[in-house]
Structures are given as structure tokens and as C-alpha cells.
């Protein structure tokens, strides 16, 4: 009798265990996993590895809980061209990088998803972001992306040349000029400042003089700034980097004593010119502080089929957790006030309140930028006046 009872009990326990296992498996199958792709360009193996690390961290945490599996995809080659083709074919990645210089055009083309609805629904805290950086991806009050990182310009100096001339890193335009004159007289650097023939550098000087690229471009403040910038080159205190080079390379090789570049210079100098000792100071100023913010957002395509899941990924990427991982290697600066950037970035971070997002949300910016570069070359060469250039660029920004 006892033996029979044991057998019956054994069979009962086995049946219950099998049923429980089967139910658990069925339950597991019922959790629908949404696959989301997040994509961008890769500036090098470090960034690629960091994006993969972000994907793994998301999949282990929020992804596992919310049923979202994310995969990182590098888009090689011409990013804008590749994304254009994918937008047109309605197969853009779910979440992707957007440079602030193209966001205006992409919004106009109707390929970027407004995010305000998701922000409100998920109570996402937008106040954690520096307003100017978030503003680079807004049109009116509509948010089209959240900045993943950024960098403004700073003043970088060659320590040896400055010490030789007995000057410190310049803080104002007047100091910039006097320092350059001292370096020119006392060192081998005959053209101490390296200035790119590029509005992406000169624009900062326009804001420093109280001017603006978006309002009243032909103002006297802008004209004075251009004349100061070009004047440094024409007077021989500055030079433009030769073809195939850039000011970072000129600093590294010891040709330039003072340059104006962003945070991207730091990893470059470490890997390419580890023996060049240089300093980083805040960007020079004149009537006021002025700078440009080079920033990239995470955005979602308007035709995306997984928008809800894509928002979960995007909000995590630019959230506190995601940004902490993203900042861990110091490739760029944090767009969030509550996530610190790695050490030694204070001269850059100081610009957060007054740095203007490069591109200014203007839908005609790409064609205007072509005019900017060519006309600035013409002004430097003396074949065009400052006022002609400002008028040309103003027209181009208006799409004329």
C-alpha cells in the first residue's frame, strides 16, 4: 500500500514538474522581443567598441526587462549619402546619429521623428541637458533628437614656444595678437597662429564680437570679426594649414604655437604626437564669450516601424546610464549636466552655456557652407570683400 502511494506521489510530482516547466517555457515564448538597430559612423575602433559596449549594456539591463534587443551597426563611407538612400528606401536604422549641421535639412525633408510625444509619455527629463545643445536639435519647441555628445572650440598652445616667448595662453583678442607678435619675434615660429579658412572656426570669433550667424549677418560686429580673423592671416601672425594638413597636425609638428580646435584634438595628440607638450585654455573672447558647439544627436526615423522600442533605446542611450558609459573613454563631452566628462575638459565645458550648435538648424546649411568656405578663401586671397562674402552667405542661408 505504502509502495503504491509512493509511486502515485512520485508520478504526481513528476507530472507537476513537467507541467510547470512547460508553462514556464510557454511563458518565456510569449515575451515578444523587438529587435532595434542603432547606427552611426565610426571615427575609429575605440568608438566602435564603445557603441558595442553600449548595446551589450542595454541588452543586459533594460533590454532584457522590456523585451528589446539592440544591435549596433556601423555605416561606413559617406554617412549622409548612405542615410539618404536608406531614408528613400524606408529602411533607415531605428535609432541613428544626426550631425547638428544636417538636422535642419533632414527635418525639412520630413525624415526625422518628432520626439515630444515620447518625452511627455515617459516623463523623460529634458532639463538635464545643456539647453544650447538640446536647442541644436529643436525646431521651435519640437525636439528631433537628443545630443549624445559634443565639443566646442578651445585655445590650444605649444608650451615650449609660449615659454620661449615668455607669454601665457591668450584669453582675449588683444592678448592673442600681442602673444603672437612676441612668439614671432622670439621663436622660430614665424606665423605663430594656425587658422583654418573655415567658418567652423571663424564663426566663434563672430559670436565673440557680439555678432551672429543666424541674425543680421552683414552687421558691423560680424564684419569686424571677419576682418580681425583674416587680418591675422594677412599680417603674417597667422597662417592657414597647407593642403593635406590641419591645425592639430601643425601644433603637433611644432609649426603652430596657437590653434583653436575641439576635444577631438586630445586623443589625436596622444596617439600621433605624444611628445609634443601642449596646453588647453578656454577659447579667446572679445566683447563677450562666444563659441560653436559641434554636436551629434540620437534620433529616430519618421518612417520607423519600431518607434516605441526605438524610443526605449534612445532614451537609455542619452539617459544617465547610457551617457556614463559613453563618457567613460573621453572621446567627447557629456551633453548632460548630471553626467561628468572625464578630467581635463574644463576649458571645453566652460563653453556649454554660450556655444551655438553648428548648423543652427538651418535647412540650407549644406549649400551655405560651400559658399562660406569658398568665399572666405576669396577674402583671404583678396579677390572678394568681407561685405560681399557676408552678403553671399546670408543669401545662401536663406536658400537663394
Amino acid at each position, binding site marked *: 500500500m505504502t509502495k503504491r502511494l509512493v509511486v502515485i506521489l512520485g508520478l504526481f510530482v513528476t507530472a507537476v514538474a513537467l507541467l510547470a516547466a512547460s508553462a514556464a517555457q510557454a511563458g518565456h515564448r510569449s515575451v515578444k522581443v523587438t529587435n532595434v538597430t542603432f547606427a552611426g559612423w565610426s571615427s575609429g575602433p575605440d568608438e566602435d567598441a564603445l557603441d558595442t559596449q553600449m548595446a551589450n549594456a542595454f541588452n543586459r539591463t533594460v533590454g532584457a526587462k522590456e523585451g528589446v534587443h539592440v544591435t549596433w551597426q556601423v555605416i561606413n563611407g559617406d554617412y549622409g549619402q548612405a542615410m539618404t538612400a536608406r531614408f528613400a528606401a524606408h529602411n533607415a536604422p531605428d535609432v541613428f546619429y544626426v550631425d547638428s549641421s544636417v538636422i535642419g*535639412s533632414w527635418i525639412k525633408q520630413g525624415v526625422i521623428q518628432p520626439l515630444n510625444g515620447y518625452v511627455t509619455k515617459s516623463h523623460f527629463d529634458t532639463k538635464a541637458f545643456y539647453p544650447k545643445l538640446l536647442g541644436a536639435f529643436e525646431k521651435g519647441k519640437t525636439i528631433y533628437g537628443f545630443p549624445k555628445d559634443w565639443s566646442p572650440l578651445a585655445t590650444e598652445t605649444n608650451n615650449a614656444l609660449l615659454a620661449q616667448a615668455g607669454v601665457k595662453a591668450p584669453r582675449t583678442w588683444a592678448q592673442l595678437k600681442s602673444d603672437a607678435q612676441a612668439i614671432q619675434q622670439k621663436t622660430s615660429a614665424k606665423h605663430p597662429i594656425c587658422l583654418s579658412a573655415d567658418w567652423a572656426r571663424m564663426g566663434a570669433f563672430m559670436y565673440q564680437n557680439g555678432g551672429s550667424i543666424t541674425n543680421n549677418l552683414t552687421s558691423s560686429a560680424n564684419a569686424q570679426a571677419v576682418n580681425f580673423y583674416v587680418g591675422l592671416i594677412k599680417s603674417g601672425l597667422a597662417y592657414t594649414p597647407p593642403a593635406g594638413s590641419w591645425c592639430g597636425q601643425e601644433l603637433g609638428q611644432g609649426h603652430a604655437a596657437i590653434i583653436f580646435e575641439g576635444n577631438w584634438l586630445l586623443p589625436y595628440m596622444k596617439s600621433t604626437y605624444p611628445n609634443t607638450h601642449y596646453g588647453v585654455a578656454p577659447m579667446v573672447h572679445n566683447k563677450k564669450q562666444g563659441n560653436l558647439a559641434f554636436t551629434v544627436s540620437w534620433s529616430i526615423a519618421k518612417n520607423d516601424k519600431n518607434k516605441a522600442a526605438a524610443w526605449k533605446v534612445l532614451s537609455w542611450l542619452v539617459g544617465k546610464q547610457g551617457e556614463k558609459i559613453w563618457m567613460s573613454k573621453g572621446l567627447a563631452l557629456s551633453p548632460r549636466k548630471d553626467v561628468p566628462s572625464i578630467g581635463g575638459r574644463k576649458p571645453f565645458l566652460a563653453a556649454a552655456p554660450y556655444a551655438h550648435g553648428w548648423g543652427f538648424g538651418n535647412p540650407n546649411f549644406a*549649400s551655405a557652407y560651400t559658399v562660406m568656405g569658398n568665399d572666405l578663401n576669396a577674402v583671404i586671397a583678396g579677390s572678394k570683400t568681407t561685405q560681399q562674402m557676408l552678403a553671399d552667405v546670408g543669401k545662401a542661408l536663406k536658400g537663394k
Partner: protein
Amino acid sequence: MVTPTATRAAQSRFNTSLRGARAREAGWGFGFAFVPLAVLGLFFIYPLGYAVYISFFHWGILGKTAPGTGTFNYAKVFHDPIFGTALKNIAEYTFAVVPLEMTLGLSLALVINQKIRGRNFFRSAFYFPSIASSVAITTIILYIFSQNGLFNHLFGFSTDWFGNASTIGWGIVSMNAWTTSGTVMLFYLAALQAIPDDVYEAAALDNTSAWRTFWKITFPLLRPAHFFCLVVFGIGALKLFDQPFLIAKGASGAPNYSTMYPSFTIYNAAFGSYDFGLAAAAGVIYFVLIFGLTVVQRLTVGRQEAA
């Protein structure tokens, strides 16, 4: 004895069988031609037609961006001073580079057509730039001709050859003439070897000088090769894109529009402004220009060649 009826029947059977064979042969022919024709239609003819179609609309990434049909994109291209500059630049480039490529290519072909020691080495060496990657060559050339580069160091110059608006165009002409000369050399070499020996023997009997032989025999007999090179390399020059794109770090045409070419204006309209209607209109105008030039070449040099 074979009756006339039997002959007619045999003839009829033969004709039927011939028609069948012809039909089968035609079927096979069309079958084989179908795949390349389909590829040509799908990837060349259809996009070409579609480009002409969208050139009459405001066309963005996702299709029509504004109502309206017309020739406004064509008017915009014709009134665009940058497109005018681009046409001027490409005309200057083509008129400089094609004769230079042909002169260099012909000179190299004449050298390696001689029975000289190490001929195979020279053939390979002269042809090498044509098969090397244009990206690699451009990058190396940029280093050599940079302000602090080897060329200036050796010859005592201080010019930034590829950073100066007055020299960059000539820099691109020289670089491309050199890289393309190997391919031109091959075509001329083939043409040189097709000239019969007896013509030269006759000239030798008349004690004709080498210089006169070249100008009176070789050069005129190379006319088909001249025409071929003029058309092929002329069209190639008009499509210039990759080297200036690398040198100017994009399609900006910098410095001071000196490297702005029509391919850049089309690229900028499409992938800078996302105005595909405008880009298509510029493309169509440029296509018509190239096509027109080719017809003119055919009617001038080509007619002489046929004669």
C-alpha cells in the same frame, strides 16, 4: 526519277526546317541578350528616364516636396553662377588634360614599341599608375607636393601646390595626366603594332628621316586611336570627381571654387541640399553637353578617321 512534286515537297520541308532553325537561333540569341539588356534597362535606361522625369518636379528624399511641374529646375541651373564656374573649370581641365594624356601616352607607347632592353619592365612601370588606386595616389601626391613636402624640399619652392587656387587646377591636371597615361599608352601601342611594316620599309627605301616618318606615316595612321582616345578620355575627364573630392576634403570646390566641377554641383544638390529635382536637371544638362560634344567629335575627327 524525282518528280517536280517531290522536289517541291523536299524544298518546302527544307524551308520549314530552315525557318525553324532560324527561329531557334533567334530564340537563343534573344535569350542570351535578354540578361544584359534587362540589366542595362534596369540599372541604366530606367534611372536615366526617371532622372529626366524628376527633373521637372521639386523632389526630395521621400519624393515630391512641393506642388508644381515645369522647367524651373533647369532655369535654376542655368542661372546658378556656381554651375557656370564649374563648367568653366571642367572645360579648362579637359582641354588641358586630354591632349597631355594623349601626348604622354603616345610618347610612352613609342618608347616601349622599340626593341629596347628591359622593355617589359618599362611597360609594367608605365602602366602601374593606371591600375593603382586613385585614392592612394592622390594621398601620396598630396604629401609629396604639400608645402613642407619632398618636392618643395628638393627644388627649393615654398608653394602649397594643392592649397592654392592658382596652382591646384594644374596639380590635378598633371596628376591625372600621369595616372591615365598608362592606359592611353596601351591603346596607342595596340594601334602602333597594327601599322604594317611595309609602309616603314618603303619610307626607309626613300631615306625618310625618323621625324618625317613619324609625322607623315605613324601619326596619320594612328587616327582611329586618336579618335578613340579623344572620345573615351574626353568623356572620362568631364566626369572628374574623386581626386578633387579627396584634395578639397569634399565637394566644396575649395579653395575659392577652383576645384568646383559639374559633378560636384550635382552631388551637392543631391546630397547637400537634398534637392534631387535640381540635381537631376543639372545631370540632364550635363549629359546633353557631353553627348553634344561627342557628336561634334564624331562629325569632325571621326569623319576624318572614317575617310
